[in-house]
């Protein structure tokens, strides 16, 4: 693998010689070390996980919309134990919510999103032949695969999968007596997440090293496309925060299996006084959210990066305020490490500490706002091409704003007292993180599909997919602001036991209906995706008339990406519609004309 990295800079002839070895099915499709193939593996595995996560959410939305009703489909999938006669069991409800959250946050929007686009785009956009270490890259995927398999496997154990919420707070997650899901299901969850952390660290280190070391000639940091900047900072956040989650998880494993008491104190459960005592459950929350908050930006930053790229290309304009965009990515990255306490305002934390966390959290709103303004002004006076990718990315700007603004309410610790853990929070994070990242990921898939598969996705189906997804996304999550403000707690199996909440049945049904509509739309996407892989229109080399380097590679994938020598970069990535040019784009490989400036990049 060291030799591989070395060849990345070697002349093409030497490189070609390096690749005379035969490729068989296993080395090409399964144990591939080619970043493009690994990117596709992440995409397909992530998409599969997303469909599982989506089905789980439909199951629990059925219960929430029609509490206590019998659904044959629930009985069919969950069996007599968890859905007797088709009525969902409360423990299973919590399990579904937990695994849904885990899959969406980690498996789709962390590994699926970063794994796909970091692998595909980093080498291609910086002009490298591959990742710094192809082997580690492959390892990262297979650890992710194993981790996914274990998570899915945990759905089938006798006592049910983990059910303590995706944040698995102890003591609930630590004690088998507390809920059935905290038995073997939780053990599998912990094992799966441990592998996940390993995968994420190996992948992340590789991305960082590649970006720092393997940029081609002329590709200075300030000429990097914003996608690469975003993926770079994302990888750094991951490398710094995932080990802390690992530490938290490890201590939990000790408490569960080896009788330690890091998180346990003064507990009497199942009729017994627990002998493990002297710890603090809040320690876990600190460790978890020290990862957890950076984690939400690990999800969001790549989405913002993809959006920057897609919006610039399709507005046929430079991204507005490139330097400010980079600065906000860095500011968000830094600040995301000092805000975690905003998830713990009502744990009884010291009020002064709570005040500090409110302050730092509200600071994040500033770079976030700058990004939103810059996206909007990129559209201004553009020549906007509404490709499906563009539609998704415009939608993403909307969800990013809608959801980011409610973050300002939540960040206010005094206000959070009454809305913490209500549906208002559910609305906030699904819109700002869930919808935004999902929309951007779709945008990225539509945009780079020709690069991945050499064919185009169907445009019309893309439009229908967009509008159904976008509208039903808001249809599901927007009303939740209001039920949250009415004091509806999250993670309730049914809310009809409180007169105040029972009034919202109609709205809950509407939400469930939107959820089902949104789910159906995703099957449209799946069809389009697989259909287009085989029968889509053949792609041209640069279908979107884009400046970045990935479009200078041949449509047919080859090892090493460029048949000849590596391209040399002469300008930044955003010379769209530059005055004095015949065409409205100037690829990064085109030298500056005499007297032409590239804005100091």
């Amino acid at each position, binding site marked *: 693998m060291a030799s591989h990295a070395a060849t990345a800079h070697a002349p093409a002839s030497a490189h070609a010689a390096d690749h005379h070895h035969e490729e068989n099915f296993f080395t090409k499709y399964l144990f591939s070390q080619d970043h493009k193939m690994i990117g596709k593996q992440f995409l397909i595995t992530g998409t599969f996980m997303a469909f599982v996560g989506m089905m789980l959410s439909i199951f629990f939305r059925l219960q929430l919309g029609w509490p206590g009703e019998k659904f044959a489909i629930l009985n069919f999938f969950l069996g007599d134990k968890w859905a007797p006669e088709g009525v969902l069991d409360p423990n299973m409800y*919590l399990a579904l919510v937990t695994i849904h959250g885990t899959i969406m946050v980690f498996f789709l929007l962390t590994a699926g999103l970063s794994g796909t686009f970091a692998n595909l785009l980093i080498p291609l956009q910086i002009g490298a032949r591959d990742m710094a270490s192809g082997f580690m890259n492959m390892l990262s995927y297979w650890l992710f695969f194993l981790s996914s398999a274990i998570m899915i496997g945990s759905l089938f154990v006798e006592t049910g999968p983990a059910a303590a919420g995706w944040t698995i*707070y102890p*003591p*609930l997650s630590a004690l088998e007596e*507390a809920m059935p899901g905290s038995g073997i299901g939780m053990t599998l969850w912990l094992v799966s997440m441990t592998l996940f952390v390993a995968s994420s660290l190996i992948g992340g280190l590789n991305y960082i090293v590649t970006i720092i070391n393997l940029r081609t000639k002329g590709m200075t940091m300030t000429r990097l496309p914003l996608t690469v900047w975003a993926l770079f900072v994302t990888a750094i956040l991951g490398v710094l925060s995932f080990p802390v989650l690992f530490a938290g998880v490890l201590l939990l494993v000790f408490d569960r299996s080896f009788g330690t008491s890091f998180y346990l*104190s*003064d*507990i009497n*459960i199942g009729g017994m*006084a627990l002998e493990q*005592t002297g710890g603090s459950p*809040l320690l876990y929350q600190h460790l978890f959210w020290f990862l957890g908050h950076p984690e939400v930006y690990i999800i969001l930053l790549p989405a913002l990066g993809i959006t920057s790229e897609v919006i610039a290309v399709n507005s*046929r304009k*430079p991204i507005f305020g*490139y330097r*400010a965009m980079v600065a906000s990515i860095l500011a968000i990255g830094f600040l995301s490490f000092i805000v975690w306490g905003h998830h713990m305002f*009502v744990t*009884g934390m010291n009020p002064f500490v709570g005040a500090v966390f409110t302050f730092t959290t509200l*600071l994040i*709103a*500033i770079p976030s706002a*700058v990004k*939103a*303004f810059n996206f909007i002004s990129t*559209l201004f*006076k*553009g*020549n*906007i*091409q509404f*490709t499906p990718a563009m539609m998704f990315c*415009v939608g993403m*700007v*909307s969800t990013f*704003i809608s959801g980011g*603004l409610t973050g300002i*309410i939540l960040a*206010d610790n005094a*206000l959070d*007292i009454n809305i913490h853990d209500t549906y208002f929070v559910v609305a906030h994070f699904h819109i700002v993180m869930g919808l935004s990242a999902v929309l951007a990921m779709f945008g990225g898939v539509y945009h780079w599909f020709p690069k991945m598969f050499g064919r185009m996705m169907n445009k019309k189906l893309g439009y229908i997919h967009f*509008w159904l997804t976008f*509208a039903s996304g808001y*249809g599901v999550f*927007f009303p939740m602001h*209001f039920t949250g*403000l*009415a*004091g509806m*707690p999250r*993670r*309730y*199996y049914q809310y009809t036991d*409180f007169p105040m909440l029972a*009034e919202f049945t109609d709205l809950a049904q509407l939400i469930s209906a939107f959820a089902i509509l949104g789910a159906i739309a995703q099957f449209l996407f799946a069809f389009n995706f697989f259909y287009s892989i085989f029968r889509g*229109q053949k792609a041209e080399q640069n279908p*979107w008339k884009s400046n970045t380097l990935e479009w200078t590679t041949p449509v047919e994938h080859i090892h090493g990406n460029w048949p000849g020598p590596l391209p040399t970069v002469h300008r930044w990535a955003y010379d*769209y*519609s530059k*005055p004095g040019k015949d065409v*409205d784009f100037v690829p990064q490989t085109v030298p500056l004309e005499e007297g032409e400036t590239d804005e100091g990049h």
Partner: protein
Amino acid sequence: MMLTLLILFVGVLGVLAVVQLIRVFELARKIRGHRDDQVTNRENRFQSRMMMVFLFGYFAFFAWCFWVTKDKLLPESASEHGVGLDWLLNFNFLIITIAFVLTHIALFYFAYRYSGHRGHKAVYMSHDNRLELVWTIIPAAFMAVIIIYGLNAWNDITADAPEDAHQIELYSFQFAWRARYPGQDGILGDANYNLVSSTNDMGVMTPKFLDEKIVELEGDIALETAKLKPEGYPEIDPSSTMGKQYTKEINRLERHKKRIQKLQQLEYQDAGDDIMIADTFHIPVNKPVHFVFRSRDVIHSAYMPHFRAQMNTVPGTPTEFHFKPIVTTEEMREKTGDEEFNYYLYCNKICGSSHYNMKMIIIVEDEASYAEWLAEQTTYNGEPAGELATGFHHLKSTPENEEDKQEATEDEVAQMN
């Protein structure tokens, strides 16, 4: 069998039909020269119009959500600090709603206005430092305002409870709540998780409960020991698997007993005069209430949305929250026009299968009715709490000791000078 065949047949036919349809569809696209890598002027125009339609649809949906939920949201705050919080919430909502509307209009209007067409060229604009500075400073200024107001409210709410606050303990366990009032001595007695039993939900410490626990544990130990010597069978070898299991349990029980004996040696605040309440608890209006929270097993959260109050209950770490209720249950029934209205205590931290149904009713009433209600309760010692109606006398700030206090502080001030 026939049926299965039939279904299979229909299935195959269906697939064939879809395949044919796709073929036709593909051909038609080819003939029309449809291309997936280019967007026609017509498509651009159509999608950009859809963006505008969406904008109005989104705003309308917002308004509709607002409209259908406006009578179902929380009624006016029933606590003093909550009134300020509601104001603050509305103020913040005003700011973010304005930002929301303006940015969305800009976003979707630009998308509509600048939709592309062939032969047109966009205007090259890479940055504008002045503009970008402006839109960094504007949000920063708003954040500053929000932070200042927010932290003011936070500091007020989280300040120490007033001295004259009634102390009430709320205790959570899977899956119910208990409330505890201090008795005659005005102090909540001590509690310990080792003491929880079927007769002692909250594990409070009284000589009686301590003794009972010892008896209970000794009984359990005897039972386990008996298992080692089953009647009519040979004795179980303590080093066999089963024997080990029994011995382990006996040792655990012995250790538990030791812990109780240790507790007995301690000096503790006797909880015998305290009053434990299940299901419905009362609090007096216009008097600050100082809640202290404990949890038996996992983390729960005491959520009282009508009072804009919430605090997690954490095993091993006592927490607290205080507020002053200002609207009685009766008054709130009138205000909401709902005769059955009640204040509720919810559990708002995922805690297991019945998390969704872990509640208590809270009755807010005038002080006299409150005293009367409390007088009807029974203490842990089994005595009627009758006297307790006045048991709180020393907590109530009667005019006399109010004066005392003032004098005292004046003295102190004088001394300091």
